[in-house]
């Protein structure tokens, strides 16, 4: 059997059309997300939302305007943690911050900030290092509910044990409990941490460069993109970074297969921290 002529399944066609509809009607562009996992999540949505098939779902998506929000929650993965992969934060603290310290003011972009776990991790670390006051942080995502949660900075108490352990492993110089108060089974993080944070709806797929930054942290977001889309996002980061600026990725992500690999050098190899080359 020739693989090349293997015909597309009806489901594949329907998924393609559904994603096209989502883009044309709502401007959410998932057309070039990694196909295997988006298919999984769409099937899950189909089952749980009770549609007969993707054509029926597309119909509901086009003719109503409530489905899009729910679909977005299936299509964007919100799994995160504070100080996720503590080694990454330790490397930022020990190897990157000494460089950034030499700037009078700093801009940090957290792309795909989810519900803010990564954002508060950075804010706490920058505070511990005495750099928070001179740092402007952009926290961006495409999921409005996630952005709202990030802005609120409130987490279920049962997540705090893991956050606290990660913080210590990441070389934390203070106690995480200094930064939150508890109420009604929740931890409410100190709003001083976000005094200089700009929260914004921004898509790495459809939006453009908006600022010049010294550090971009984009972790476990591009992992959901296909290679072509990864190239677009990495191009965006290159154009957003100042000369010799830093780019941090998730621990299984790499620029190795990127069209822009040459624009960066490996700064801390094991932790996927890259530096923009001169010029």
């Amino acid at each position: 059997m020739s693989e090349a002529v293997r015909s597309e399944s009806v489901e594949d066609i329907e998924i393609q059309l559904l994603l096209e509809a989502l883009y044309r009607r709502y401007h959410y562009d998932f057309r070039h997300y990694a196909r295997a996992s988006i298919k999984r999540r769409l099937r899950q949505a189909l089952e749980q939302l009770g549609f007969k098939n993707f054509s029926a779902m597309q119909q509901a998506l086009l003719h109503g305007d409530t489905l899009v929000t729910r679909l977005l929650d299936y299509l964007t993965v919100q799994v995160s943690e504070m100080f996720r992969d503590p080694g990454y934060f330790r490397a930022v603290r020990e190897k990157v911050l000494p460089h950034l310290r030499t700037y009078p003011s700093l801009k940090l972009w957290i792309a795909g900030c989810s519900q803010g776990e990564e954002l508060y991790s950075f804010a706490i670390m920058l505070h511990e290092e005495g750099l928070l006051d001179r740092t402007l942080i952009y926290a961006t995502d495409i999921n409005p509910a996630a952005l709202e949660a990030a802005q609120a900075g409130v987490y279920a108490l049962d997540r705090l044990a893991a956050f606290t352990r990660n913080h210590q492993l990441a070389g934390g110089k203070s106690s995480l409990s200094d930064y939150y108060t508890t109420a009604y089974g929740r931890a409410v993080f100190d709003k001083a941490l976000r005094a200089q944070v700009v929260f914004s709806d921004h898509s790495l797929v459809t939006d453009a460069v908006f600022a010049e930054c010294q550090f971009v942290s984009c972790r476990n977001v591009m992992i959901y993109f296909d290679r072509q889309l990864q190239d677009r996002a990495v191009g965006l980061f290159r154009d957003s970074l100042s000369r010799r600026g830093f780019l941090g990725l998730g621990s299984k992500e790499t620029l190795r297969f990127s069209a822009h690999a040459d624009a960066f050098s490996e700064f801390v190899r094991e932790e996927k921290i890259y530096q923009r080359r001169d010029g």
Partner: protein
Amino acid sequence: MSEADPRAVVIGASAGAVQALSEILPRLPADYPLPVLIVVHVPDSPSGLVTLFASKSAVAVREPEDKEPIVPATVYVAPPGYHLLVEPDRSIALSTDEPVLFSRPSIDVLFESAAESYGRGLVAVILTGANEDGARGAAAVHAAGGTVLVEDPAHAYAATMPSAALLRCPDAIVLSLDGIVDHLLNLGTS
């Protein structure tokens, strides 16, 4: 042979996996003609597994990175905390989606995506394990025309996983660990 044109092997294992894989991986030659993708549930010592098998095996054993092209003569072990999937262009995709049946990586997730990419060219192996992950995936491999091998539950360290797979996929071939190795060594040597 049922598999017309084998292109990849996927393996899933849980409790007792280290032992079982120790019977298999060291026997694959350095130029094994197919890629092998593995999901193992290991609670603690995560990446230690790769180091262990890499040192014992002639074939290359490693944890893949996202969007890495899949090539023969390489064993890819799912990194702890990530699902391992195969993209339509046959590159690796990793994801941090929620666990499936309490597992991340999940055998079902790997098998289902590999079945879609490789169809009849896929050989799936279910080894020992104390949960039911992989049963659904094995059925998907079979439905896509691939071959399913299941370690004989009577001799497996933990029978639950191979038994569950057989229940969902009664046409699977039941083999001893040795039989599985022989089968794998015969692939691609037409």
